[in-house]
């Protein structure tokens, strides 16, 4: 193994040797970040999430529990351990097996960051978002995000997020265009995505 490592590094150095004298600049212009911020990131976020055929609703802080109840009526739900709302029809994530996860109808989680320009929610799987598998196996994902978590664009999100944490960036429900370029919502991930934006 280390023979391969040494040989590859040796090849790289040999390949670059003739260029050693040329300028090897380490300055990368970040002028691409100089853009006008959207006037109203929250409404842009709502518009862009809806563009992906996801359901998106604005709800007041007092109305969140009712909104979750309405979206999960009659469903068997799983929730992460730190979700701050109580659900009568939910089980708390207790490291159920993959097969057990497959028996749940829906999952309810928080989010870490929302990106207005692309309509993206980012989970970094902290306490109110749960481990990755719970937001993947059930067929419906209800995701709750506060307006103060919504940033303008991708650079702002990258700046806020911690790369040491596993992340899932979600832009609408899973989708494919592999058959005659016809878009089909819902393949392997949750086929329904509901985003509740709490103001």
């Amino acid at each position: 193994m280390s023979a391969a490592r040494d040989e590859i590094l040796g090849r790289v150095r040999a390949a670059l040797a003739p260029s050693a004298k040329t300028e090897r600049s380490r300055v990368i212009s970040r002028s691409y970040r100089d853009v006008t911020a959207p006037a109203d990131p929250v409404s842009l976020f709502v518009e862009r999430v809806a563009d992906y055929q996801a359901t998106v609703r604005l709800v007041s802080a007092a109305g969140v529990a009712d909104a979750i109840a309405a979206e999960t009526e009659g469903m068997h739900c799983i929730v992460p351990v730190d979700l701050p709302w109580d659900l009568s029809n939910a089980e708390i994530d207790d490291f159920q097996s993959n097969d057990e996860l497959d028996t749940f109808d829906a999952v309810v989680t928080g989010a870490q960051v929302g990106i207005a320009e692309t309509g993206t929610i980012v989970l970094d799987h902290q306490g109110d978002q749960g481990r990755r598998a719970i937001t993947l196996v059930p067929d419906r994902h209800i995701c709750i995000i506060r307006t103060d978590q919504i940033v303008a664009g991708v650079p702002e999100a990258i700046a806020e997020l911690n790369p040491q944490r596993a992340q899932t960036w979600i832009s609408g429900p899973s989708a494919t265009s592999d058959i005659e370029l016809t878009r089909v919502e819902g393949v392997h991930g949750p086929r329904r995505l509901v985003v509740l934006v709490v103001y």
Partner: protein
Amino acid sequence: MSGTFVGMPAFPSAAREALQDDQLRRNLANATGVIRTKRAEVVDEVDNWEELRVAGAAIKDEVLLHLDEYLIELEASLTAAGAAVHWARDADEACQIVGDIAADHEVDEVVKVKSMATQEIGLNERLAQRGISAWETDLAELIVQLGDDLPSHILVPAIHRNRDEIRDIFVESMASAGKPAPDGLTNDPAALANASRLHLREKFMRAKMAVSGANFAVADTGTLVVVESEGNGRMCLTLPEVLVSVVGIEKIVPSWEDLDVFLQTLPRSSTGERMNPYTSTWSGVNDADGPQEVHVVLLDNGRTRALADEVGRQALRCIRCSACLNACPVYERTGGKAYGSVYPGPIGAILNPLMKGVGVDEQTDSLPYASSLCGACYDVCPVAIDIPSVLVELRTQVVDSHRGGAPDAFGAAMAGAAVSFGSPLPWKTVVLATGWAGRLSGPLAGRVRSSALKNVPGAAGAWAGARDIPALPKESFRAWMKRTGGQE
């Protein structure tokens, strides 16, 4: 199992065959047209697109010009994050490493998320030789695999298949690979997608080991990134106990902040979306979340050869978006298979010769000529790879590598031209001859109303075989000038 590209004929003959396939041409024209339009719309939305391209190119160049340092940094941060790092000089070594990991865990099947690198090294076939089934989980890759077929596009590999064929493939082949297709399966795309969901869910649930590639590998944090649409990637990256990622050494970006360029340019260039449905990032092993054994195979397999080419090196900036395929008038007509490689289109026409070397086989040497040098690929490239310039450079290298042998048709024609243009007497002879030819072809041309010559005899014939040459005029310019004094 899917087929392989080994033994494909050179581009001109493969292209001629592809051009006879009406369905392929129709599907491709439709697909490339639709994606081109979507891309243009979402790129136009971005005010600073050009700055993003320049930054993307600069970040990748920075990595390439210090690749040894970044590889060592990536290895250290991956190791610190709990991943095991392996190095593979070539395809054989990479397949051996992945196969050994599978053997260590006594698995006889792995699930795979679509990865160009694992296709490049022929991993599925190599694992099959060791009795390990590798299941493709991307819908299009599943169609290709079940149909024992070859992919025709990086992004939509089964674009050459229509919905009826896909239904038939599912009905015929799903049962032998696992869960059979549902009874009464129709050709409705939603029904077909659901059939793949049911078929693959069984595999995701029981798989102990997954194999992925990575779109990006962040040197300073050891973070790998996979960009996808269907959720099969999330399944593979999350549910199995063991995860092996095969990563080309050029996939590195220096730091986490650099992703703010590529996570803007890749989805817009690739599928024409503001953002792809799912992006997963992970740094080694996460406590109680996802695979608890994580391997990363750093793959050379010709990349250092490409790196040594000072003109061609920029091809290693490629982020596999496929925008150049959709922009290319040659690709639009021939499709991806004619390029005889997992990397088709304009980027394939430079990446293959750069990674494999020229003067080795006829197929690879034919690829730099599979272009009209129109430059559309360069215009749409999100990392500003000057593909036309690299094509021209590679044509020179191909010609140079064949020096010493018999001159080919083009060489002979150029040698003839050198004599003709070299002094006035031979030139007048040529003009006189074509003038006569023009007068001879005149009456014929009048009868068949042909504006183009299809068949040219002699040395120029091979060149003219793929091109229409304007019909010769009735008289030469010199004769016309002499007759009219330029007054007509």
